[in-house]
């Protein structure tokens, strides 16, 4: 199945009895506080424009109350938008009829929840076939698929356990298996790992990345954890008070934070794992042919490059592109300074 991207355009959500009546006022500049105090409506999302690439992981990051869970619920319309469009495969999800929406949810989307939301009276296997049950697929077919995905998420042998008998990490594996069994193009993950212990969280991130390398689904991942966002996201959108404050790749955000708010997040990040060799290298055009001893791929992170250069005991390396052609030179000193010196935002701004 070919993946399609998701295009969110001009999306507004105003909670309250007459949300639609205030869209124009908000567009004209009414603030969230004014709307709340004087008109008794809550501004959930304001002018959201994000294009989520097909077959990639888009991470929406923000603190609690930033509107990120509201945003993800617009993609399968668990929350009705006040204004705007969510386009998938040429169709506006916001304009679907009840039955179109039901079909869309059944076949195109699958969701993983922060609190797992498993059915307590069903076993792991029965929970996993839930989406296919809803589609009306007979158990003879669905059980086979379910067993495959239970195995893929590492839960073999637990098929007949009930959710209550499993740890949080294992329950979320069931949640993931349930979503994957649905065989849908869009995978919505609403703070899927936020309730897990840090070690298990990293483990589950690995599970997702491994599966995604093979499946190439259009994944929307919600988190409040920047490290998680940077590890998973092909694209990251940062939300604050219902507005997108910055979107781009992890490297964009780490290197050029849009404002103090984001800069304060980024300060704590391990930059060596985010910044790629090509960002720090000296391009070949300036220096002519390079004759350095080892080659590092352009997309390699600085941490990995540093490890390889230290092992080879060299201070310079050749940076090569996908086809192996040299594109630049990496100096160890430049590499280390990029890893350890955060650009002081105060100085530049």
């Amino acid at each position, binding site marked *: 199945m070919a993946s399609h991207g998701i295009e969110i355009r001009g999306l507004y959500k105003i909670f309250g009895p007459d949300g639609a009546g205030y869209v124009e006022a908000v567009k004209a500049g009414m603030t969230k506080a004014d709307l709340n105090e004087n008109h008794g409506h809550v501004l959930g999302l304001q002018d959201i424009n994000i294009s989520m690439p097909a077959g990639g992981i888009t991470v929406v990051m923000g603190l609690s109350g930033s509107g990120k869970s509201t945003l993800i619920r617009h993609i399968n319309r668990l929350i009705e938008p006040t204004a705007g469009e969510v386009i998938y495969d040429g169709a506006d999800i916001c304009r679907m009829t009840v039955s179109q929406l*039901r*079909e869309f*949810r*059944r076949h195109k989307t699958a969701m993983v929840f922060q609190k797992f939301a498993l059915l*307590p*009276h069903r076993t792991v296997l029965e929970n996993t076939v839930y989406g296919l049950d*809803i589609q009306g697929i007979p158990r003879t077919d669905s059980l086979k698929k379910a067993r495959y995905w239970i195995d893929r998420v590492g839960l073999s042998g637990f098929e007949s356990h009930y959710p209550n*008998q499993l740890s949080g990490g294992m329950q979320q594996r069931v949640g993931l298996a349930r979503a994957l069994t649905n065989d849908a193009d869009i995978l919505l993950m609403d703070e899927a790992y936020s309730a897990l212990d840090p070690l298990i969280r990293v483990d589950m991130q690995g599970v997702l990345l491994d599966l995604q390398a093979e499946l190439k689904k259009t994944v929307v991942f919600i988190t409040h954890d920047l490290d998680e966002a940077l590890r998973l996201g092909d694209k990251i959108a940062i939300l604050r008070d219902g507005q997108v404050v910055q979107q781009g790749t992890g490297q964009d955000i780490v290197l050029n934070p849009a404002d103090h708010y984001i800069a304060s997040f980024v300060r704590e990040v391990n930059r060596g794992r985010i910044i790629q060799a090509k960002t720090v290298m000296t391009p070949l055009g300036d220096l002519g042919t390079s004759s350095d001893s080892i080659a590092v791929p352009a997309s390699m992170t600085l941490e990995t490059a540093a490890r390889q250069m230290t092992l080879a005991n060299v201070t310079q390396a050749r940076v090569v592109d996908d086809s192996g052609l040299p594109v630049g030179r990496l100096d160890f000193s430049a590499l280390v300074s990029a890893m350890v010196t955060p650009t002081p935002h105060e100085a530049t701004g």
Partner: protein
Amino acid sequence: MATCSVLPEVLCNFPAISDQTIRMARKTIDDGFKGLVREYADVIDVLVQPLQWFLNYLERLFTTSPWVLVLAVMLVVVYLASRSRAITIGTALAMSAIGLVGLWQDTMVTLAIVTVSTLIAILIGLPIGIVMARSNRVQGVVNPVLDVMQTMPSFVYLIPVVVIFGIGKVPGLIAVVIYAVPPMIRLTNLGIRLVDRDVLEAADAFGSSPGQKLWNVQIPLALPTIMAGINQTIMMSLAMVVVASMVGVGGLGKNTLQAINNQFFTFGFLNGFALVAIAIIFDRASQAFGKRLQKHSEVVHG
């Protein structure tokens, strides 16, 4: 009455509508009601006929089968429901004691009517409870009706029931059902409304239709509460069969009524204890069954 001498008459004795007017109104309502019933007597007969058949069939089955067989079936049912040896042995002892004091036949009659009324109460209560859980407006209408049903003295039900259906087993049955159905409705409604919102959202996210949501999520998760409702319904029908004996329901209730009228102390208590014994058997068996259905929620990860 010192104050009354200074107050005007109207403020001292409550100005009631005149006796004559009330008598007129009462007569009109009563006559109208009776007339209505007389007019639709055929329809009512046809409607209650299946109940009559079912009740008679079950009663005959219970009373004419050899007691050994009835007891054996009962023990098997209790064991299958509870999977508990203690409850099964307790049932055997209690039923034997009832047989020994000569109340076997009467107990069978009571058992038949309680079984039928519980089944009907579930059949009526479950759908009403479901509809109530889905609509606040329906809940707003049904709740006060249930309040009235539960607080109205149970004897008062017997009056319209007798007017409409006459004296006999079926009117008694209907009175019992009216009395026993409110907890079934209330607890079904409550159980469905208390279902975890996150799980419901997951059901929506996977594209469940309202019916799929009801059968896959709401009813299964509400089951413990619904089972409590069924248990309450059984207990209340056992209590009501005694009152219903006043309109011609036989069995242990009729004996109790006789004992009251004639001050048969021992006989009254024997029948009372027989009812208690059945109540405990029903209660323990149905609760153990409900608990077994919920086995998955007992084993919590440590």
